[in-house]
């Protein structure tokens, strides 16, 4: 017995769906589904999350990408694009509806669906009580779009399901729209019913005690075993079989969204050649005295990887944006992992040569990872808009758009909203929310609750805490990313729906940066940094008052008065070292060189503090502890930080030098260390690391 569920709303149908997209895929795999759909209300926001889960294993059910279209006249239908072209049309249809109205809403009409109906499969969702009006609507769909319209049927234990199914079957037969079994799924397991009810309460602004019939009558709207579905639809084997038939007709998969990056060069030129030409030009500026062999080798290796992965146009884009900013006198600075790339340095995107800092290119781009590189560029915050408008101007609004940020429930907002919905008093909710620092991944520990004078065994409170824990991480709405642009060769709205942002004149796509990563879509981060504005103004003041002309690259280094000031901890208003923790650390660290400051910034972070790196480093620096290295090779890696590993790059180097990792593996190790979620990989890497170290004679 096999089955495909075609009507599934995830929690990207905000405040309605009660399960994450990935959870559906997991459960569908466990139940042995042939396919599972993700059909959020007028949205494709959740499909990438489901795809990420689905591609983890080849045995996972096929993921069907679709959307439930709710029209302005309250009709509802599910739309599945059969191929890439049809997907583009669905995406454009949703964009159309979303651009019409304010952020978050969508307005679509029958005619709009007609305009973009080519290549789609439609499943009409009948109302609770199908009547003559629905019969008319069904007939209208069937005659307008012959052969592609189906009618959904479900068995939700309403009491009259047998009659309703029969009625629908007659209507569907008359209209020529075959019946399709579905379960109108809202949650992946019946255990999510309480959360679904609480979401309804949050949506409608009521409490659970006053919600009444807004709550789910029963917990049937979950993914059911194919056998169970067959039992419910025992009189309608065709409707069951048709789910597979439809799933078979859909050949579209998100991997088809082979990302088409704009070429960045005109006249049939090869972007790689252009990039190499620019690099050659850059050599002259960066190394007027001749290029060292080591640099030459590194650049060649980098260019080879870039060529292999065909990222050349991306570098050209960033180069072009930076060039534009410089030409307008807008200060800008590349930062983050891009600093590991010598090519970025030579192109003028970053200011400091990675070989000076002993960095690893694989941290930036890695062939094994097959994830796009991430070049973050900071611009003066007051003039960032000029850069944004330049991008819009160059590529047009239909080809460039801002990435979204999925705003999720954090512990505090979750407990507030759930508390309100559960009817807890304002006082109790604030007390709970104030204990947020005590929330671990398991929720709020009982002692904490007792400490604030609440009884954790009180059923209502216990439920509230459990539900808040469940709600934690649920998407709440889409917001605009601080500056992540995505740029496409063809129309952007054929790749992903675009909607209005709260800000005027801004449009945002429906996916966030993780989604873009999953699909391998490149994004350029155009970030605003207030300090750059500050520096530009300082340059202006220097010019007017002292007639001194400075630029970022010509500011003199090593001014001892500046270091004296920092050693005293007098650093208010100094970017990066003005926090209270930094200020208390400065007098102990007593930085005297630029590299000291690099360490200063790196060391006052949760990682080194928790890893107890701070004190050994300080002791060694003050000569209270002998500086020893496990071996001569590792001395090369660790000598700049006195034998204490402080940087992620050093961790990578240790893995390469000490444990014989290849650079890509080292990057996996870094990522596994950096993120908590990929807990599985760290154990395998740990074994490999220890074995490698032992093999190389380290104990």
């Amino acid at each position: 017995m096999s089955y495909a569920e075609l009507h599934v709303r995830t929690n990207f149908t905000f405040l309605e769906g009660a399960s994450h997209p990935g959870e559906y895929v997991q459960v569908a795999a466990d139940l042995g589904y042939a396919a599972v759909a993700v059909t959020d209300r007028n949205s494709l926001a959740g499909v990438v999350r489901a795809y990420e889960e689905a591609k983890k294993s080849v045995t996972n059910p096929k993921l069907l990408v679709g959307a439930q279209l709710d029209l302005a006249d309250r009709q509802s239908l599910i739309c599945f694009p059969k191929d890439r072209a049809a997907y583009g049309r669905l995406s454009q249809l949703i964009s159309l509806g979303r651009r019409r109205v304010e952020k978050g809403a969508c307005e679509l009409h029958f005619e709009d669906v007609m305009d973009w109906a080519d290549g789609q499969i439609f499943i009409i969702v009948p109302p609770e009580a199908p009547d003559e009006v629905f019969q008319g609507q069904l007939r209208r769909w069937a005659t307008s779009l012959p052969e592609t319209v189906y009618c959904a049927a479900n068995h939700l234990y309403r009491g009259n399901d047998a009659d309703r199914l029969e009625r629908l079957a007659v209507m569907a037969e008359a209209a020529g729209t075959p019946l399709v079994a579905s379960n109108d799924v809202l949650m992946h397991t019946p255990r999510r019913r309480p959360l679904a009810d609480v979401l309804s309460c949050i949506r409608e602004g009521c409490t659970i005690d006053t919600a009444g019939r807004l709550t789910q009558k029963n917990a049937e709207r979950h993914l059911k075993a194919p056998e169970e579905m067959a039992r419910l639809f025992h009189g309608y084997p065709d409707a069951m079989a048709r789910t597979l038939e439809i799933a078979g007709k859909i050949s579209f998969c998100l991997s088809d969204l082979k990302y088409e990056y704009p070429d960045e060069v005109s006249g049939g030129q090869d972007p790689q050649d252009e990039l190499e030409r620019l690099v050659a030009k850059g050599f002259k500026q960066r190394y007027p005295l001749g290029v060292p062999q080591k640099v030459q080798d590194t650049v060649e290796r980098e260019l080879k990887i870039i060529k292999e992965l065909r990222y050349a146009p991306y570098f050209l884009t960033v180069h072009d944006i930076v060039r534009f900013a410089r030409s307008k006198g807008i200060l800008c600075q590349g930062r983050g992992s891009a600093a590991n790339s010598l090519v970025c340095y030579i192109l003028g995107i970053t200011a400091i040569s990675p070989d000076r800092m002993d960095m690893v290119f694989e941290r930036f781009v890695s062939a094994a990872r097959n994830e796009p590189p991430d070049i973050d560029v900071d611009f003066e915050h007051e003039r960032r808009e000029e850069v944004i408008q330049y991008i819009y101007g160059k590529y047009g609004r239909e080809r460039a758009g801002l990435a979204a940020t999925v705003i999720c429930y954090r512990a505090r907002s979750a407990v507030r909203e759930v508390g309100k919905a559960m009817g807890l008093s304002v006082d109790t909710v604030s007390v709970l929310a104030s204990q947020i620092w005590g929330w671990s991944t398991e929720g709020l520990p009982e002692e904490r609750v007792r400490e604030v004078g609440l009884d954790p065994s009180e059923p209502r409170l216990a439920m509230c805490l459990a539900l808040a824990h469940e709600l934690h991480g649920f998407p709440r709405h889409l917001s605009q990313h601080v500056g992540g642009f995505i740029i496409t060769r063809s129309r952007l709205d054929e790749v992903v729906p675009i909607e209005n942002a709260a800000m005027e004149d801004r449009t945002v796509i429906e996916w966030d940066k993780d989604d873009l990563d999953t699909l391998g879509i490149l994004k350029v981060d155009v970030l605003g940094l207030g300090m750059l504005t500050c520096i530009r103004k300082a340059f202006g003041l220097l010019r007017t008052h002292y007639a001194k002309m400075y630029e970022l690259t010509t500011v003199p280094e090593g001014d001892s008065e500046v270091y004296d000031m920092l050693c005293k901890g007098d650093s208010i208003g100094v970017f990066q070292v003005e926090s209270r923790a930094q200020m208390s650390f400065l007098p102990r660290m007593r930085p005297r060189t630029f590299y000291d400051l690099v360490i200063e910034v790196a060391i006052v972070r949760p990682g080194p503090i928790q890893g107890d790196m701070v004190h050994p480093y300080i002791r060694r620096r003050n000569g209270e502890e002998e500086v020893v290295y496990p071996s001569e090779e590792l001395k090369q890696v660790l000598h700049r930080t006195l034998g204490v590993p402080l940087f992620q790059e050093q961790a990578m180097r240790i893995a390469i030098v000490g444990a014989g990792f290849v650079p890509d593996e080292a990057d996996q190790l870094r990522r596994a260390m950096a993120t908590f979620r990929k807990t599985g990989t760290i154990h395998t890497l740990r074994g490999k690391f220890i074995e490698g170290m032992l093999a190389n004679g380290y104990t």
Partner: protein
Amino acid sequence: MKRRIVYLWLKSLSTDRIARRTPALRDRPFALVAESGNRVFLYAVNLEAEEVGIGRGMLLASARTICPELATRPADMRADWTFLEAIVAWCRRYSPLVARAGGDGIFIDITGCAHLFGGERAMLDGLLSKLRLFGVEVSGALADTAGAAWALARSGLSGEVAAPQDTANALSPLPVDGLRLGTETTETLHRLGLKTIGALYGLSRASLAARFGRETVRRLDQALGAEHEPLPFEPERSVHQAVVRLAEPIFTVSAVEACLTRLLDQLCVRLEKHQIGIRRLELKLIRVDNTEGVVTVGTATPNRAPKELFRLFADKIEKVDAGFGIERLVLEAAVTEPLNAAQEVLENDCAPQAGPLGNLVDRLANRLGFDRVLRFAPADSHLPEKASVVSSAAFGPQSPGVFPHQPVPRPVRLFKNPLLLHGFEAEAAGTSGFTARFPLWRRPVIARSLQGPERISPEWWLDDPAWRGGARDYWWLEAMSGERLWVYRQRDRQTGEKWFLHGLGA
């Protein structure tokens, strides 16, 4: 005669209203909170809260940082208003002229009343101590003018009695804050060193008006009695009644009915002017020997249609003993409610105001008692026993609302305690050839068909003992005899499946 006016300042009226009933909230910082948008701010605070530095209008979050143990209750402006109204009504024991002064004060014109209460001082002391005994924090003062009493009471001189004709002296040392001016003007006066009311006496009126506005002069004049200040005294709730005095005593029912018709017409015309409807009517029949018989009728909804009201008296008048004859009839609307004028129906001048159901309810209730006529009103729940509530037909809201559409009808009669069905097996439930035979109320029932199921899950947020068994599958069972039974199946881990009868169909 010079006027004498008492001002009462109820400074923590809103918090007192709650604290009176909740002893736990006395003698500790306590505030009422109201929401505005997303922010929760303090609507009112009590004295203890003020002492620790918490003030009205503060955000709850900021107040909590000052005083974490601050107790809060939601504000209820309506209830505050009603509470003040009750105090105003109580104050009428001292004088018929009582006026509200804003949301937190009362003026009483006690001109010529003080001697009834042992003189002015004794009267004011008694008034204040009684109010404090009720749990209302009050400061009050007595003076020739409303303005002067206000200034005294608000300046911390509670219990002060300013001697007649001596207002100017009494006010002279008080701060200008007592003049009921805007905060801006008051601050300006302070800044200029004009800190007391007395300091203003010497200034020329023209420059005072030019500098600080007409209002300042007017308030000063009002306080000193140079300008009359009208106070919004509220008339006592008038009694709505109509009286017929007869030259000759009457004995017959028809004569009483004739009088009643006249009385009803009179009363209803008068009530219409005030847009008031009747909920309870008392007809007093006063006999020649000065004894009286009383007939009372009530209505479910406010009503002032004479013909409908007349019908309610129909059977009751006969029961009154006329004795030596009735010489006076008094008809009084004992309980009234606002009732707006409705469009009169032209073709039928006795169109029912309460609607046919309302009239039925009135007539039944007047016979059986108002607490005995009940009706079902829809309630918002999926659970069958919670989908309706039984309430008094007469006192509930006029329209009980509409029962929502159910995909499958709910039973006409719902049992309070579902009945366990022994010997009922429904393995093949839902299939066409289904039959089952089981005993019910000592007779066999042969089931012909089952329709369903409607699955209803318990309300997970409540621990309802009746629903501890988990989700129920409800079926309509049709018996050979034609009965329709609403049965449900419950799956029990220990005992397996159980069937219950929960209701009967029509």
